[in-house]
């Protein structure tokens, strides 16, 4: 059906090099009006740079673009928007202390009167089945609702091409359905959508065409409906993929016990934890799902020891540790890996050696009388680099010089190689390519097979179902009762996650 539609955007021979790395080499593809086109690739494949060039954030070194039949070379996003290109970023740029309408107005060149804008927001949100109250404070919105603000901000500009960067990572399954209905409606009205994702099932159900990038080059174009997810994944990776194997470990006694844990969030607009209780046995993997911002960060802080409670709320092998800090909890056998790599799990400006010391100092015995054993730390860093295939010139480079996926591999290795009895990980494979993600999941299962109790907090349901023995959902700071993964259906999970936050009827009404 794409052949019958007029061409909207053609990208030809686009090349962009950064010092030391070619982000895009001779990339070409085309999108027709009303087409939903997937841009597929691993981390670092050049997807983001490609769309940034289309959106005018990055200027290509060479190559041409044609938009609606005329040459197109936006020098800045405002020019791209004037031409009819809009973009929803993976990370929202919203002010939490302002309301929806004010946030939308900030993104516009000539914002109308607030009252008129609010009316237009209401109209657009009803038309596209994305209910949103313009007067609500953004700080009080869920991640899915924040995304709606961004989408409506784009739709108000009446775009011809809407770029979406990994839009479903923050949504519940029901919310994903609603988003897809909106996107299909836009498509039927002639708006083309350039959809970046690495979730292959989604792409199969939504997209008309796909361009697959690998290491900056376009390696294939295909029609996703006609391919299997596995075929596309292998095109992305350029190799065959292994599914993680689970070694059936014997479940032992309880290694981590949390009972009625309630703590206030230290994060502005954060979510306080309310009466969290669960236990994880030796050899067990507990998967905790939930939409971002429902207390995941706080739960990790409360388990790592950055956020303290009374002693008996958290127990490691029966020992109360709730009132202990991170150092003492590591001594007791618990390691934790926070989600945010740059600035929380790692110090971006420090070397990998220093970052290895950051958490491994205690358990690997890397200090003597307060003095750091840098030679030993370097050896440990080199072991991680080797075992987790971290692509880096060496252990002395700054953490921020590594790509997100590579740094994540290093940080996962750092925690998983400490021989801990309890492992807590928030978003183990966020932003990591498919092959590396599989390797990380495999080593999580290996640690569990060796008898470690593992808690995996993730927004990727497929990942949780792959690694977990039991499953619970964090919703507004409360944890559902954990249940075994076997026999769980997506619908049940969706309901555990709080459905679509009261908007199941959105599309039926419209």
């Amino acid at each position: 059906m794409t052949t019958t539609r007029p061409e909207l955007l053609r990208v030809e021979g686009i090349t962009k090099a950064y010092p030391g790395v070619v982000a895009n080499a001779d990339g070409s593809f085309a999108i027709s009006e009303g087409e939903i086109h997937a841009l597929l690739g691993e981390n670092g494949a050049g997807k983001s740079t490609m769309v940034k060039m289309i959106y005018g954030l990055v200027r290509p070194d060479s190559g041409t673009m044609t938009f609606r039949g005329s040459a197109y070379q936006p020098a800045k996003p405002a020019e791209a928007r004037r031409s009819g290109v809009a973009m929803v970023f993976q990370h929202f740029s919203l002010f939490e202390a302002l309301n929806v309408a004010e946030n939308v107005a900030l993104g516009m060149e000539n914002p109308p009167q607030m009252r008129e804008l609010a009316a237009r927001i209401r109209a657009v949100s009803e038309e596209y089945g994305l209910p949103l109250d313009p007067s609500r404070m953004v700080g009080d919105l869920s991640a899915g609702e924040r995304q709606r603000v961004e989408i409506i901000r784009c739709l108000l500009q009446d775009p011809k091409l809407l770029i979406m960067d990994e839009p479903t990572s923050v949504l519940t399954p029901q919310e994903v359905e609603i988003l897809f209905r909106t996107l299909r409606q836009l498509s039927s009205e002639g708006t083309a959508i350039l959809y970046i994702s690495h979730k292959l099932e989604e792409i199969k159900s939504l997209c008309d065409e796909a361009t697959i990038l690998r290491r900056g080059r376009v390696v294939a174009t295909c029609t996703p409906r006609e391919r299997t997810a596995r075929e596309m994944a292998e095109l992305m990776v350029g190799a065959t993929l292994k599914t993680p194997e689970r070694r059936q470990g014997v479940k032992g006694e309880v290694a981590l016990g949390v009972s009625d844990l309630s703590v206030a969030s230290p994060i502005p607009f954060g979510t306080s934890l309310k009466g969290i209780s669960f236990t994880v046995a030796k050899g067990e993997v507990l998967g905790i799902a939930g939409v971002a911002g429902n207390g995941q960060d706080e739960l990790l802080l409360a388990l790592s020891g950055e956020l303290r409670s009374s002693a008996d709320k958290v127990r490691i092998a029966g020992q109360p540790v709730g009132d202990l800090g991170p150092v003492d909890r590591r001594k007791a056998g618990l390691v934790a890996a926070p989600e945010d790599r740059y600035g929380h799990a790692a110090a971006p400006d420090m070397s990998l050696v220093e970052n290895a010391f950051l958490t491994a100092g205690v358990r690997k015995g890397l200090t003597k009388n307060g003095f750091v054993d840098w030679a030993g730390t370097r050896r440990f860093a080199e072991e991680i680099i080797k075992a987790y295939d971290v692509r880096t010139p060496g252990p002395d480079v700054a953490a921020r010089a590594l790509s997100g996926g590579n740094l994540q591999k290093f940080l996962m290795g750092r925690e998983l190689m400490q021989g801990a009895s309890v492992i807590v990980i928030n978003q183990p494979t966020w932003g990591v390519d498919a092959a590396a993600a599989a390797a990380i999941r495999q080593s999580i299962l290996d640690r569990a097979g060796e008898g470690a109790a593992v808690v995996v907090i993730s927004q990727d349901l497929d990942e949780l179902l792959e690694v977990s023995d039991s499953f619970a959902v964090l919703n507004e700071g409360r944890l559902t009762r954990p249940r075994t993964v076997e026999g769980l259906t997506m619908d049940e999970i969706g309901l555990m996650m709080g459905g679509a936050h009261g908007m199941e009827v959105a599309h039926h009404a419209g």
Partner: protein
Amino acid sequence: MLRLEKRPTPSRFWLYATPPVAVILTMIAGGILFALMGKNPVEVIRTIFWDPLFGEFAFYLRGQLLVKAGPLILIAIGLALGFRAGIWNIGAEGQYIMGAVIGASVGLAVFPTESRWIFPAMVIAGAFGGWAWAMIPAILKTRFNTNEILVSLMLVYVAETILAKAATGFLKNPEGMGFPGSRNFSSYPAAQNAFLYEPLGLHWGGVAAFVTAILAYILLTRHQAGFQIKLAGQAPRAARFHGVSPARLVVMCMGISGALAGMAGLFEVTGPAGQITIDFNTGYGFTAIIVAFLGRLNPLGIVLAGFIMALTYVGGEMASTSLGLPDAAIQVFQGMLLFFLLAVDVLTNYRFRLAVGAH
């Protein structure tokens, strides 16, 4: 159009090139300033940078370099530890004064007893005075989340008031015929910080500065506390994840910098200054901030920076006496150094790119 672009990794070249480039830029801009004031810029710059080392009075002035550099280095190293951790103690001048007042009080209280324990006791009391004065902003910060920059800075003026009271009141020399100022330590050997080797200007303060520089260097490169200081400054959340208590770090860094500033004050008042007077302090506590940054917050760099800054002091005095340059001009000149340093420092983490025009 020029555009700043973040470097993937900090430039090692600019890390080391920044201080000399800043010194040269300061000479040029300072020269223009002096020229506008109707002085011969080449002569002024030569008087400041050349004459103290190789000029007619160099035999005396060279010794003066260490006399000035010692307290600057001692204070700057303490400040640098805090600055590395993102703790901004701007009130070293106040801690310096309080160290001098408390330390001198201990000595004067036992006058005229002679014992070799008196001077060490005064040094400890001086360090305590500076430490205690720094604990005020530290505790206010950890308890009530006040801003340590403002509190420590304002406490400088409180300390100056106390100093004035000391000089005209409780520490006033009873045999001073009514003149303000304490007894002179040069006539009280047990409490005097005499030169150990006069041609180099070496007294106990200089020794303390060198020892502190070495200890601080070891602390920062080899010790866990040094790692935590750097970590807290670069990535506060990662520091909490590592297990650093922010409050304990504030108390530790403020405490160390306060104690070192207090010691510097004591060495000064019992040595080169000789007595507590209303204005024995000469702004070392503030100038040390420049020294800390000029030395790249690195203890060994600070030693070098301390001598460069001492040169501008000694040479500046020369310029004001022999060329009639006002003191304020010298202070502007020293301030320029920090200005250019911070400006050039941008190049360590960023580089200039020639951006193609917008169309």
